[in-house]
């Protein structure tokens, strides 16, 4: 079996991994809908958005790999890290759930990524700024699409509304993590690489309130629960998604076709 790679504990590298892993893991989750979406238009939409996210992950992970002394390739970072070395927030690794869950998560993550890419256009790293310039256009389209569906389902039938409320109650628990600062955020902000997590909280809440208002849904009350994927401490679901993603490269090192 192909052994795991070891990463330096550089906060700026970890900042990049948090972004790249968010795109990578959500892209994988959305790809799971291929052949399973409720209507064919959404089968196409979810896989198209997955493709955009994987493309964004490739850009950011390539940049992260260049900053390692071992000059890792994007595929090594995507497929040969141990679970604790993935730094995506727990929110994106939760199983895909039903369509309401996927739509509401997409609205939350696309809104968050859109705000992040907007800020990253001014990154001190020219390559990251260039990736952000492209990704921003894609995230805006994703946010629009998810928001349209959130309104349709939230303000829809009794059944669609019931499912939206259940999804929202569960997803909301995992959102405070997106905005919690730590030493990685402080280093990124100080160097000009990108904003600290907390800087996106107010604009995110404002845009989410607007979407939820239009969907006649109410944001749930905040709880004391805190997820910790951005620190590498994941939910029980992370191991399963990684084993599916990594199986081939672990069993057949360097396999290509």
């Amino acid at each position, binding site marked *: 079996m192909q052994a795991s790679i070891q990463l330096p504990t550089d906060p700026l590298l970890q900042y990049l991994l948090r972004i790249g892993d968010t795109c990578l893991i959500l892209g994988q989750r959305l790809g799971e809908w291929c052949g399973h979406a409720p209507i064919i*238009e959404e089968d*196409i*939409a979810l896989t*198209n*958005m997955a*493709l*955009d*996210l*994987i*493309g*964004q992950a*490739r*850009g950011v992970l390539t940049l992260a790999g260049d900053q390692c002394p071992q000059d890792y390739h994007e595929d090594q970072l995507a497929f040969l890290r141990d679970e604790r070395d993935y730094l995506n927030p727990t929110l994106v690794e939760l199983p895909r759930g039903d369509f309401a869950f996927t739509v509401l998560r997409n609205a939350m993550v696309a809104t968050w990524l859109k705000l992040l890419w*907007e800020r990253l256009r001014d990154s001190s790293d*020219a*390559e990251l*700024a*260039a*990736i952000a*310039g*492209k*990704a*921003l*256009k*894609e995230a*805006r*389209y994703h*946010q*629009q*699409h998810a*928001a*349209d569906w959130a*309104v349709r389902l939230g303000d829809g039938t009794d059944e669609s509304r019931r499912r939206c409320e259940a999804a929202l109650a569960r997803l909301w628990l995992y959102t405070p993590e997106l905005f919690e600062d730590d030493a990685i955020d402080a280093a990124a902000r100080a160097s000009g690489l990108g904003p600290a997590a907390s800087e996106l909280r107010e604009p995110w809440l404002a*845009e989410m309130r*607007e*979407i939820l208002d*239009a969907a006649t849904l109410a944001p749930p009350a905040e709880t004391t629960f805190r997820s910790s994927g951005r620190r590498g401490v994941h939910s029980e679901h992370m191991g399963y998604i990684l084993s599916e993603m990594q199986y081939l490269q672990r069993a057949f090192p360097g396999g290509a076709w």
Partner: protein
Amino acid sequence: MNATLEATRTERAWAVLDAVPDPEVPAISVRELGIVREVLDHGASLEIVLTPTYSGCPATEVIEQSVCEAIDAAGLGPARVTMRRAPAWTTDWISEDGRRKLRDYGIAPPGPTADGSAPIRIVGRRAEAVACPRCGSAHTERLSAFGSTACKALYRCVACKEPFEHFKPI
């Protein structure tokens, strides 16, 4: 040889790129698509600078390969492709010829891109008016926000009843 009458190597390369089709929308060339930023003559080699369309567009690698092959086949090589991400590609860079060819092929070309910093409108949004590439009617409706490739959405013409694809403005 009279240099003023003979096309330069880079001019000839641009002409070659005008005939390299986009692998997913073969009606138009990579040059008409607006992804060729520069052609640089380094003497020993020719450098073609491309800007990718979408982050995850699977055609990007095929385009690199077909560009190199076309330049080499025209005797202008060896060619190498480099990627320039900034500024990000926009459909505003699709040429007038490219737009006409898209329409003739049955794909509604993109309108001008919207303000990329405007907030997302959730309610009360008016659908973008897209003219049917077949009959020209503006009485069309969107069937799907996403289509067979990353760059397109699906529409239907209410007047002539034909479905068609729309190149999304980004």
